[in-house]
Each structure stands twice: as structure tokens, then as C-alpha cells.
């Protein structure tokens, strides 16, 4: 006997050795399982069967083995599992292990039969195991029953439609009904789904019966999360059942240490599941009810376990039907909301909206401590979840307070009006008039005065009662500097907007001459607005200059110059892309200059903005040009007016030999395409020919056609000069 016992222990030790081997390297699983199956079979001693069942449960659970390998392994072990589970006298712990293994294998077997429909034997074995497990579900000891529940959950998971239309291959939780083709020879999807639906009902039965068996209840609740999240067809049924489950039913019986543990456990497990689901899936339409149930459970639990009251605790009816005692107000239908009337004295707007009596919360400055985007997110989620009735109450509370405040503001008037009433003839007393006037005054004051001045302003409001009429105090006048500053601020903001606006995806067809300047809020419109603001804003003011304070005019001019400066910077930031902006701006400038000239031909000191800014722009981007740039050609050809000053800038380009070609091509383009300035452009080419030797070959080519005489003359003088230079050079050398 003793030797036999020893041999069992020795063998178990050997089996443990084999287990250590596979834990170290999962590749040995196939060999080890095949080698151990005969030892752990249905006729083996209970110690071996226990070890084997636990080993198989572990093997099919571990993520260390790839799902594909597990699938192959499952084919090997199904027969053993079937024999073990079908033995009516099977040891309880063996059953537990076998059912756990079967739960892990079920989705694998389903996937196998989906892809290998010929292998009916495997599926028959799996079905036999399933049938057996589902049969012992109701009668088995509790520790086996929880495993039956888990098995049923895996069947439901596998036989309902997954939320993922494309199952992820590695995720066994994703094996679902969607993988079964409609023409499968063995599997009938609707039938499987019906079975799953029945199993789910059986699982939820324990909650519907409001069982007090915490082990079963917890085991069930803790399997439901993945079903709700990944199997939409089960979601509503499960959530509704959980919402109708009352985990606190036991509280009506005497509170023994055991029942306390059970109540706490079921309440907390229910609450955790609801919190998890409402957090993971905030779009679920039942989230509101979940939140209510969570709060209700927390309150009831607090009441039950409140140290002070050892009396029989109240039990919440989760379906909302209230018992007689609850109606006495011990459990208010909504969370407590204490709306205290405001104390007399001045209040900030925040005070009016504050309900909490917690000083720490009151003084917590959200604007300083919480970044705006987080505050916004918190507010949105809070509003989405808040109980509408609670919100209504809070709003009503604020309304009431505002009404009280409104009335309170009227009260100080009375002592002032009373003497009036006594002194004057009764007919003159028009309380309505005064009251109305006064309220208006106060509101005006509140609106127009900064917070600091309010105290001071209250007095005139009361004293003002003696006067028959009230004049709205004029708004504080902006001094020119302030105005300019504010103006600059606005302009800067417009530039900010322009920078963020994307290029229109599709170029709109140009509306031509009939187009409106700024009819939409795209970038083009803003550019039009801003350029006209720069060019025309002061145009009107120039005419008024005599009437206006000269200072003010100067500041306005300063403003438009600031805009110009900003436009200038804006264009130069990325001149290749923004050259269009530059052209439209300069066109506006040119137009404005012309209009100015016409409107006041006598005035000679009208600043020529067009030329000034064109030259600045050219000076700005010319240093960055490279030989392939088309931007210069385009810019010059689109400008409304060209003059020698502008051309002189082009001429300077030729200092860089690599840009000679660019400068000359640009000029030649103007010669060809803009006849009015042809001569001007040719003059420049001529100058270039004269000044820059490197440019001569190309310049000569262009001049050949338009100014053949010049070339000839120049050639001659040049040869003469050259001779002279050469002569002088030789003299120097010699």
C-alpha cells in the first residue's frame, strides 16, 4: 500500500517534470500531451485524472500556444475529455478541469468544423461534451456549476454575431457566427444562434430569479462584459436583466458575517459591471439607466452597512416601483441637491450657479487649474450623463435665485422713493416708472461698468431718482492709441485665420469681372478684405482730415501701414505660394493711388503706396530667387504698372551670373506680352548688355530682333573700347 502510494507521488512528480518542460518551451506540448493522455485517461487513478484535467485546462488556456497549434491539439484530446466528462461518478475536481478545457476548446472545434466539414467525428465529440456539460449544469456542485456557466458563455460567444465583421485570426474571442458560411453542410447558423439565445437565457435565469447565491451570481456577472461589448444581439437583453437584478435582496434577512460578505459581493460585482459597461460603451442608450442604478446601489449599500443603524435595512426595488416606506422620503428618487437661498450681500455670477457647500470646491478655480479642452470634455460627458430631472431642478434653482436677486435689487429703491412720496404731490408719484427706470439703470450699470466700479456707481443710480430723465452714460471713448491697438489686434487675428485656412481643394472657376469681392469665408475673401482695409481705410479719412483731430488721422494711417507691414510679411513668409496675394494687394494699392490722384489732383503729397510696396516686395524676395523661379516673371507680368525703379531691381539680378537668364527671360516676356512697356523693357535689356558682360550673349540675342541698330552700334563702340582697354592693359603690363 505504501509503495503504491509512493509510486503515485513519484509519477505525479514525473508528470510535473514534463509540465515544467512545456512551460519552458511550448513546442513540446504536442509530445507531452500525447504521452500523458494514456496516463490520465478515464480509468486512471483519481490523482492522475485530476492532474491531467488541470494540465489540459492550463494547456488550452495559455496564450503561450498559438491558436493554430491549439486547434490541432484539441483534435487529440477531445475523446479523452468526452470520456472523462461522461463518467457519472467522476471526481468533482476532474470535472472542473475538463469543463474549463472544453470551454477553451469549443471555439477551436467550431472553427475546425467550419473549415473541415468532412470531419464529422470531431464535431460529434464536441457536441457530446457540450450536451453532457449542459445536462449537469443544474445539478452539479456549485464549483462545477460556475465552470458550466463559463462554458455556456463561450458557446454563446461562438454562436452569436460578432461586432467585428472581419474576425481577427489570433483572437479566439472573435470566433463567432459570422465565420459560418450559409451553405455549410453540417452547421446551421440560425439553429446555432437559437441555441446560443437559449443558453444565454439560462445563464441570465440566475439573475432573473434574483438568486442569493453569490458564487453563481458573481460568476455569471463577471462573464457578461465581453458578450455585451462584442455581441450586439445579446447586449440589450443582458443589460436589462442586470438592471433588474437586485443584489441587495439578502439585506432583508438577518445580517450574519456571511450574508454581509454575500451582499457586498453581489452589489459591488453588479456595480462594477455596470460601471465598466457604461465607461466602455458610452453610446449605449441604456447608459443613463446604468448610471442611475449605480448610484442607487451605492446609496442603498451605504444605508445597509451604515454603522449607526442596525435596524433592518431598506431594500431598493431596482425596477423603480417604490415600497411604502421608501415614499416617506428616506430614499429620495433623485440624488440630494441642496439649493440654499443666497445670503444677502453682493454675489458673483459664480455664486449664483454654485450649489455645493464644500468650501474647497467653491474656491477651486477651474479656469486656472483645468486646461480648456479637458474642461470641455468633462462638461460634455457630465451633461450627457446627468439625470435630466436633476438638471431641471438645478436650473430651476438658479432661476429662483436670479428672481430673488432681481427682486432684491429693487428693494433698496424703496427707502429713497418713500420720502419722495411724502414730500411731493401724490399725483407725481409714479412708482412703476421709477422702478422700471431704476432696474434699467442698474442693469445698464452692470453691463457697462467694470466690476470694481460697481460700488461707486450704485450711488448715482439711487440719487438719479430725483432727476426726471436718465441719460445713458456714453461708452468710454477709445483714445487713438487704443483704437489703433484694437485694430491691429483684429487684423492680426484675420491673418491668423488666413494662415489656418486650407487652400481650396478644387480651384473654382473665376467669376471674372462680375465676381463679388468677398462673398465667402475662404482665404481669398479674407485677402480681399484685408487688402482693402489697408488701402482704402484711410482713403476716406484723408478727405476728412481737416475736421478730425489730426492725431487720430495719423493713428489711422498708422493702422493701414501696420496692415501693409503685416501683408508684406505674410507674402514674404512664403512668396512663391503667396505671390497671388501680393499681386491682388498691389493692384488694390495702385487702384487706390489712382483714385486718390483723381479725387484730389491738387494735393501733391499723396503717398505713392504702390511703388513703395512693390519695391519693398521685390527687394524682399529677389535675394531668394533661383534660376528656375517662375515667380518673378509672373509677378512682373501681373503687376498693373511697371516703372524704371522696378526694372532697376530686375537689372540688379544680373550681378549673379546664374540669374542672368532669369532676368532677361522675364524682361523678354514683358517685351513680347506687354507692348505698352516694351520700350522700357528693351531699354533695360540694353542697359544690361552694356553693364554686364556675362549677360551679353543672351541680351544680344533678344536685342537682335528688336533693336538691331543698337547692337551694331554697340558692337562697334565696344570693339573700339576693347582695343583701347587692351592697349592700355598691355601698356600696364609692359
Amino acid at each position, binding site marked *: 500500500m505504501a509503495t503504491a502510494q509512493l509510486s503515485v507521488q513519484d509519477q505525479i512528480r514525473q508528470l510535473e517534470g514534463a509540465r515544467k518542460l512545456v512551460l519552458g518551451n511550448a513546442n513540446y506540448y504536442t509530445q507531452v500531451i500525447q504521452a500523458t493522455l494514456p496516463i490520465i485517461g478515464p480509468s486512471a487513478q483519481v490523482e492522475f485524472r485530476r492532474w491531467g484535467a488541470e494540465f489540459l485546462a492550463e494547456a488550452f488556456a*495559455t496564450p503561450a500556444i498559438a491558436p493554430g497549434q491549439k486547434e490541432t491539439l484539441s483534435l487529440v484530446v477531445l475523446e479523452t475529455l468526452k470520456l472523462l466528462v461522461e463518467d457519472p*461518478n467522476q471526481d468533482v475536481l476532474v470535472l472542473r478541469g475538463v469543463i474549463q478545457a472544453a*470551454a477553451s476548446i469549443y471555439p477551436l472545434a467550431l472553427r475546425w468544423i467550419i473549415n473541415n466539414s468532412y470531419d464529422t467525428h470531431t464535431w460529434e465529440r464536441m457536441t457530446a461534451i457540450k450536451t453532457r456539460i449542459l445536462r449537469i449544469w443544474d445539478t452539479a456542485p456549485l464549483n462545477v456549476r460556475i465552470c458550466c456557466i463559463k462554458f455556456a458563455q463561450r458557446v454563446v460567444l461562438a454562436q452569436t454575431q460578432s461586432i467585428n465583421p472581419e474576425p481577427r485570426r489570433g483572437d479566439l474571442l472573435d470566433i463567432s457566427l459570422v465565420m459560418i458560411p450559409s451553405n455549410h453542410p453540417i452547421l446551421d447558423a440560425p439553429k446555432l444562434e437559437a441555441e446560443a439565445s437559449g443558453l444565454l437565457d439560462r445563464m441570465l435565469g440566475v439573475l432573473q430569479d434574483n438568486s442569493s447565491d*453569490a458564487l453563481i451570481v458573481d460568476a455569471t456577472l*463577471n462573464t457578461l*462584459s465581453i458578450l455585451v461589448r462584442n455581441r450586439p444581439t445579446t447586449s440589450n437583453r443582458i443589460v436589462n436583466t442586470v438592471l433588474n437584478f437586485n443584489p441587495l435582496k439578502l439585506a432583508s434577512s438577518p445580517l450574519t458575517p456571511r450574508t454581509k*460578505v*454575500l451582499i457586498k459581493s453581489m452589489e459591488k460585482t453588479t456595480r462594477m459591471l455596470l460601471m465598466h459597461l457604461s465607461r*466602455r460603451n458610452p453610446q449605449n442608450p441604456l447608459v443613463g439607466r446604468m448610471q442611475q442604478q449605480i448610484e442607487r446601489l451605492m446609496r442603498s449599500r451605504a444605508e445597509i452597512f451604515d454603522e449607526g443603524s442596525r435596524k433592518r435595512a431598506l431594500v431598493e426595488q431596482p425596477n423603480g416601483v417604490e415600497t411604502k416606506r421608501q415614499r416617506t422620503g428616506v430614499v429620495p428618487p433623485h440624488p440630494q441637491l441642496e439649493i440654499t437661498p443666497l445670503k444677502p450681500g453682493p454675489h458673483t455670477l459664480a455664486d449664483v450657479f454654485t450649489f455645493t457647500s464644500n468650501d474647497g470646491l467653491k474656491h477651486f478655480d477651474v479656469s486656472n487649474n483645468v486646461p480648456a479642452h479637458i474642461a470641455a470634455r468633462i462638461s460634455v460627458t457630465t451633461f450627457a450623463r446627468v439625470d435630466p430631472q436633476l438638471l431641471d431642478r438645478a436650473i430651476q434653482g438658479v432661476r429662483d435665485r436670479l428672481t430673488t436677486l432681481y427682486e432684491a435689487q429693487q428693494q433698496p429703491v424703496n427707502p429713497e422713493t418713500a420720502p419722495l412720496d411724502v414730500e411731493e404731490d401724490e399725483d407725481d408719484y409714479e412708482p412703476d416708472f421709477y422702478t422700471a427706470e431704476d432696474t434699467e439703470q442698474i442693469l445698464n450699470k452692470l453691463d457697462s461698468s467694470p466690476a470694481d466700479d460697481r460700488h461707486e456707481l450704485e450711488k448715482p443710480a439711487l440719487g438719479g431718482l430725483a432727476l426726471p430723465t436718465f441719460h445713458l452714460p456714453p461708452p468710454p471713448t477709445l483714445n487713438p492709441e487704443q483704437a489703433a491697438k484694437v485694430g491691429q489686434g483684429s487684423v492680426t487675428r484675420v491673418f491668423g485665420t488666413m494662415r489656418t485656412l486650407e487652400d481650396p481643394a478644387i480651384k473654382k472657376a473665376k467669376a471674372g469681372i462680375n465676381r463679388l469681392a468677398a462673398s465667402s469665408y475662404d482665404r481669398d475673401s479674407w485677402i480681399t478684405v484685408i487688402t482693402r482695409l489697408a488701402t482704402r481705410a484711410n482713403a476716406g479719412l484723408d478727405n476728412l482730415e481737416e475736421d478730425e483731430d489730426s492725431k487720430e488721422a495719423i493713428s489711422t494711417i498708422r493702422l493701414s501701414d501696420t496692415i501693409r507691414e503685416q501683408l508684406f510679411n505674410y507674402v514674404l513668409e512664403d512668396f512663391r505660394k503667396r505671390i497671388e496675394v501680393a499681386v491682388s494687394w498691389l493692384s488694390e494699392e495702385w487702384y487706390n493711388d489712382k483714385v486718390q490722384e483723381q479725387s484730389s489732383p491738387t494735393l501733391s503729397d499723396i503717398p505713392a503706396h504702390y511703388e513703395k510696396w512693390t519695391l519693398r516686395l521685390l527687394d524682399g524676395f529677389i535675394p531668394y530667387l533661383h534660376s528656375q523661379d517662375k515667380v518673378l516673371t509672373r509677378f512682373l507680368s501681373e503687376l498693373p504698372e511697371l516703372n524704371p525703379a522696378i526694372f532697376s531691381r530686375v537689372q540688379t539680378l544680373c550681378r549673379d551670373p546664374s540669374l542672368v537668364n532669369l532676368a532677361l527671360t522675364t524682361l523678354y516676356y514683358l517685351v513680347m506680352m506687354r507692348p505698352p512697356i516694351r520700350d522700357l523693357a528693351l531699354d533695360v535689356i540694353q542697359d544690361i548688355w552694356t553693364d554686364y558682360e556675362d549677360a551679353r550673349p543672351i541680351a544680344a540675342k533678344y536685342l537682335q530682333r528688336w533693336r538691331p541698330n543698337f547692337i551694331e552700334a554697340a558692337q562697334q563702340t565696344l570693339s573700339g573700347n576693347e582695343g583701347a582697354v587692351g592697349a592700355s592693359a598691355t601698356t600696364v603690363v609692359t
Partner: protein
Amino acid sequence: MEATNGESAPTAPANGEREDPGGFKLKFCTVCASNQNRSMEAHLRLSQAHYPVISFGTGSLVRLPGPSITQPNVYQFNKVSYDAMYKELHEKDPRLYTANGLLNMLGRNRQVKWGPERWQDWQIGIPRTDHASDRGSEGTEGGVVDVVITCEERCWDAVIDDLLNRGSPLNRPVHVINVDIKDNHEEASIGGRGILDLADSLNNAAKEEREAVGPTAFDMASAASRASFDERVPDIIGEWQERWPNLPATWTLAWF
């Protein structure tokens, strides 16, 4: 009635090793926020009692007190060893960190295992053969446990939420028990004793279950007389709670 924790604990466990009783042992996992104080105290206690035990923290980072409340010492889970923390703090301010007990705690922890591990990063069911040098690693090679004991309600919540999140792919039941312990060295020590007492009670029940070989199954009379370990857990916790009234407990049966 003023009750003190552990007043009537049947066996006041000695501070330190005890003889290995052998036989079946439940596998435990202790959890607190940073895997430093409470869970490590309990980890040490359980390992000294020869239970298979692993431990985790549920926080986002390992936070240890610093020179002021706004300057905590923050470390990453699974990246920094207890030894490295010990050396760093010893270098920073040996007096401060000796006075507040941190060096003592880290010194203890580095004798137990390499470094703090994060619960959420635990790959449940992946063999832990590479943790052989950790105290209490014997028996936890399979990478699963039977009982998870958290030391704070918040951690229990995090564990349950995480298990719900994982979707219970392993089909293995696990008892998750919270034992509320304040986060200071004294309470951690008391809590550690309480947890060991709980572990002993649970393990006795589990042992009895395994000694009862046979079908029990469908004969309800015998099943009642020999309730399974799982069924007895709430009774055991209830009785334990009477012994340790200042360590409020919460329990559920969850799934790996």
C-alpha cells in the same frame, strides 16, 4: 465594543519563516497601487509561509514619497528594479529616506523580487519560468493564481475592470478579495498578518476539498456536508472579517 485587528487570530504567525507544511497550496497574488508597500509586505509574508505568490501594482506609475508632497519619486513599472531605486534614493538623501522608511522598504523588496510589476501588463497564463529567483515563485510557473488579494478598494476595482476588459479568455475562475489597508508601514505590517491569516484559512478549506476524493456530485446530501472550496470562500471571509474588523473586505468570483 472596541475590536482590534487579529485579536483572536488562531495562530499568530511568527515574524519570519515557518516550516513548509507541504501538500496542496493555493496560488496567491497580492496587489496594491505601486507594488511597493502593502502588496510587497503581503508577498513577503505569504512567501515566508511557503505559499506560491506573485504581486502587482495597478497604478500608472510607481510613486514613492519625495522631499515634499509635490516632488514624488516616480518610476516606471517593469523597468526599474527595487535595487536601482534603493541606490538612487540612498544617493539623493540617505537621512530623509531612512527616516521615512523608504530605504528599509526597498531593502526588503529587493530581497523578494526584481522590481515592481504592473497588473495591467501581466500576461495572464504566460509561464513565469523566468521569475524563478523571486520569493514565492515556486508553484506560480503556470502564470495563473487561484486568489488575488488587493490592498485597497481602488485596486480591487482596477483589477475587476481589467479582468472584464480582457474578456476572460482563459475560462479559469479566480477569487478576487480586497482587504482595505491604509498605505503606511505600520498598517501594511498589520495587513500583511491579516492577509496571511486569510490565506491560511482559505488554503485549509482548499486542502480539505482535495482530500475528499470522489464524485460527491449529484448526491445533494453529501454535497452539503462537504461544500466545495469555492462555496466556502464567503464563509471563510465572513469569519475572518470578525477576527479582523478593521480590515474591511470585499470579494467576488471573477475569471481569468
